């Protein structure tokens, strides 16, 4: 193969590679648009008795002081649930129900007040732009992902 032919071959491969990347990225956006969760997954509502006390976007949660711990080899980091509830004016409660989209899990976790310790956090799921509930006392099976509501009673 001559140098000129090799040059053409390499250019063709480069064009195919760039096209493959564009198809991959475009396809990902298309899949998300068709299968992805609704926008409500990117915000967390704090409610009591059906009344909304506050709503926080993931960016607003990110701006709060975060707590960090390691569990099952993974770092979990996010604002303390207690701090979020106190900021929303819901610091006084007996029971907390964490509600998520329920796509990968049951979508509901009920915690009594004494289980909502400072190290129970709303961990940021970086690839998803949502939060999940995590804590040293919460097992992987109990986790609620894509949290949309913190309901206090």
């Amino acid at each position: 193969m001559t140098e000129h032919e090799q040059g053409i071959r390499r250019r063709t491969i480069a064009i195919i590679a760039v096209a493959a990347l564009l198809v991959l990225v475009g396809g990902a956006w298309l899949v998300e648009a068709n299968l992805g969760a609704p926008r409500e997954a990117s915000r967390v509502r704090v409610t009591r008795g059906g009344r909304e006390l506050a709503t926080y976007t993931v960016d607003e949660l990110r701006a709060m002081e975060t707590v960090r711990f390691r569990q099952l080899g993974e770092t979990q980091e996010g604002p303390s649930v207690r701090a979020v509830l106190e900021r929303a004016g819901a610091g006084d409660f007996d029971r907390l129900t964490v509600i998520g989209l329920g796509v990968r899990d049951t979508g509901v976790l009920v915690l009594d007040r004494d289980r909502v310790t400072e190290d129970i956090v709303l961990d940021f799921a970086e690839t998803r732009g949502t939060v999940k509930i995590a804590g040293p006392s919460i097992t992987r099976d109990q986790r609620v992902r894509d949290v949309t509501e913190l309901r206090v009673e």
Partner: protein
Amino acid sequence: MAAVDTTRRRAFTTYELVVLALLAALIAVSKAVLNLPLHVPGHSGAIWMAILLVGRALVRRPWAGTLLGLVSGILAVLIVGGREGLLVWVKYLAPGMMMDLGGLLSGERLDNPWVATLVGALSNAAKLTASLIVSLMLGIPAGYLAVGLGIAATTHVVFGALGGWLGTLVLRILRRLRVPAIEALISGGR
């Protein structure tokens, strides 16, 4: 020193295997220790792809990238973990294989910034694709995986490209340092 076409020799030398093992450890450790506060999916690819590219460009042999990816993946199972559990190694193997393919199709020109940028982007995208396939195989619903997929694919490509480009910078610095051991490795003398 006479240059040897290392891509034609089959077996790895002990020296090459040691270099690949050290770089594989560096990949796994960087993934576990370097948590850049960027909050963007795929950002670790900027470092990870740079190390992979340097490894594949130094050990210019078929399957060197695959081996590098496989070893770093096995180490990652032990020290990093992830959504994929014990199958997390697949996520490391895929970009290594893509590096090999890039090296093969480019005529071993991974030290060219344009080639490296493109191969880095493809490799980080391959990592995301492998992760999605493993997650689907593990029964994680597609609807769950689709959340944030568009931005994840975009940032994986961008950070992978950045990693590839960084890799060529590191290679250029290594060559400028004229370390005999590295020069011998590139020319196939060891």
